């Protein structure tokens, strides 16, 4: 008995768990991207399966329509890029806050605050020279967004108030303020329509619109398009934020606070100051996006003009691991998916009855698969070995 080797019995082996999960210390970059790419393909397959099983839509037709609806031709490509720019702008704004592990889910409200301030200036002072008007609108938008970011940050750093819940509530307050102005401005009309949109009133017509800057010149060069400017501004913000987070002292402080507040304090970083400063930046950029939306896209204000991107941007920022350059790609991908599936429902509704709401089901399936793949990047599943180990 004494020299019997410890052989695991069948019973003992079955008691060991079938698999256990360990955290990966690191993963080669190519492997992470391979996992993401495979999950992207997997998501596309699932979407096709969903459309095929429910309404018998041919997968090839589905992909073709989706791609066409997202990218092909000027009528589809420009709206996709412009919406991506808006989404990117908000995601970039969230990046520093998230990197600091400050869960700012109030981007929607910060965008609305900025949009509201810009629209207010536009509505009340349409007789100012247009360049000056746009400048004041821009500053007002940035300040309003910054204030909306500052309030929860101040309470967080002073009293430790939960920032996730605080910023969430701030969204609805902003939305209700916008609703209030919307309803009082529209008066008895059924909808507000465009602010300064009355052609008959020459003095105020298109005041505060970005395109009004070039209204008098006859040519239509590339730089005279609001769409182009929206895209350029968002792209440069992404690049600037990448540099800010990676190569500046403040960016480094954000990273340290995000990793460990105790370390930051030990290193002499004032955590409260970094938290408040970063949230003002985050909110201000959201406010800038609100200004852009009002002056270069919607030319009006309503609680819907952020199109829910304040929430989608959270998903974008998280999926990109706070790398603002990756965000550009993710933003285009999500908007393309949204516009593509919209095109699918438009194309197949008449023939198969595929309802319009399927677009959000498709988005949901896609997002679930993509965010689920992060598990494989961060963790590893170790299966129980089948061979006798210690025999």
């Amino acid at each position: 008995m004494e020299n019997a080797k410890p052989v695991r019995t069948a019973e003992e082996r079955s008691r060991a768990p079938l698999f256990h999960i360990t955290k990966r210390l690191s993963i080669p970059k190519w492997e992470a991207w391979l996992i993401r790419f495979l999950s992207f393909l997997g998501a596309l397959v699932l979407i096709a399966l969903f459309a095929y099983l429910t309404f018998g839509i041919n997968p090839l037709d589905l992909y073709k329509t989706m791609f066409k609806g997202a990218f092909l031709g000027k009528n589809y490509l420009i709206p996709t890029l412009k919406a991506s720019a808006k989404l990117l702008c908000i995601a970039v704004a969230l990046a520093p806050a998230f990197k600091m592990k400050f869960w700012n889910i109030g981007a929607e409200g910060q965008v609305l605050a900025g949009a509201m301030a810009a629209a207010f200036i536009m509505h009340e002072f349409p007789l100012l020279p247009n360049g000056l008007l746009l400048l004041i609108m821009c500053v007002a938008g940035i300040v309003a967004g910054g204030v909306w970011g500052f309030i929860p940050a101040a309470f967080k750093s002073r009293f430790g108030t939960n920032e996730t819940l605080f910023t969430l509530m701030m969204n609805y307050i902003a939305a209700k303020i916008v609703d209030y102005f919307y309803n009082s401005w529209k008066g008895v009309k059924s909808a507000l329509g465009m602010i300064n949109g009355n052609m008959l009133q020459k003095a105020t017509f298109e005041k505060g619109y970005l395109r009004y800057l070039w209204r008098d010149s006859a040519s239509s060069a590339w730089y005279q398009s609001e769409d182009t400017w929206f895209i350029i501004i968002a792209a440069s913000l992404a690049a600037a934020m990448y540099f800010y987070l990676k190569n500046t002292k403040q960016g480094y402080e954000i990273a340290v606070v995000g990793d460990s507040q105790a370390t930051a304090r030990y290193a002499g970083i004032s955590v409260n100051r970094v938290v408040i400063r970063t949230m003002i930046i985050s909110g201000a950029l959201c406010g800038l996006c609100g200004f852009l939306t009002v002056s270069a896209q919607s030319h009006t204000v309503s609680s819907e003009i952020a199109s829910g991107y304040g929430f989608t941007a959270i998903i974008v920022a998280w999926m990109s691991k706070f790398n603002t350059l990756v965000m550009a790609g993710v933003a285009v991908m999500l908007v393309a998916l949204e516009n593509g599936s919209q095109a699918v429902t438009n194309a197949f509704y008449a023939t198969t009855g595929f309802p319009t709401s399927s677009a959000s089901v498709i988005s949901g399936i896609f997002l679930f698969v993509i965010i689920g793949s992060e598990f494989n990047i961060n963790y590893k599943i170790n299966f129980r070995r089948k061979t006798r180990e210690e025999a």
Partner: protein
Amino acid sequence: MPVILTWLHQAILFGAFIMLAALGEILTEKSGNLNLGLPGTMCVGAAAGIIGLDVYSASGGKSAFMIIVISLSCAFAAAAAMGGLYSFFTVTLRINQNVVGLVMTVFGVGLAKFLSACFVNIPASGNVRFERAYTVFSAKVPFISSSLGWVSYLLFSYGFMFYLTIALAVVLTLFLNKTRHGLALRAVGENPAAADAVGINVIKFKYLSTCIGSGITGLAGLFCVMEFKSGAWSTADISSIKAFGWLAVALVIFAMWKPLNLIWGSLLFGIFYWAYQYIIQIPTDITQMLPYIVTIVVLVIVSLKRRKENQGPASLGVTYFREDR
């Protein structure tokens, strides 16, 4: 009937289904899962309940008992499945809770609209009315609902779901504070590592509380359609249920995660909601902003006092991995 009584009556009815949704969310959040997918879950629950009803009434069923059983179990099951999905992503795959919750809301609202478009025949303009189900759900207690004057009007003139909600608040309070499993659940929400160390199955508790909590939230969606919307169903209703869902998320914070606080909290939210009909000097949008403002005030006061029993579960929003330090 004095105006104030009508106002209170409406406020109580409005508050009741928000409260039911918030009850489900409290059960979920006690396990440390901040389920921001609540609005989506509520929509899915409502849609599933309606589909169950539609199928049953299309086959000619009229029995009150069956209507209740079928609609409630469909709503509960579908919403609990949404809770299962949430738990799978946040507990098993350990994905960030905020991200999953927001995706759940997008997906849930879309799914509710999709399912209802597939199964329920809604006319192009307007809505479907479930007349028979509405009578069943809004049936009042005989005798007592009229014999006590204004007391009856305020307290006894609602359908059975209202009393179910109040009872559930009491049961949940007892469960959380007086039972062993309730203690274990609270331990999971406060400090999952410690709970794990004393042998509590953290994963099982997180899954179960989230699924059951989501199921209850789903019932709230059905409750909203059956009483508040008088049994009428249309795609636009799904969007308004979503808005009510966010109100329920706020209510949980306002009640400081205590089920019994929901009773007066929901009454207050209801009063705010209907204020525009009675105090016409203040614009609707401002009175509807009040619930969110008072919630922030409560949130700040709670953090000022730093008393642990008023705070949310300590691990709320944090994913748990045993091997993390």
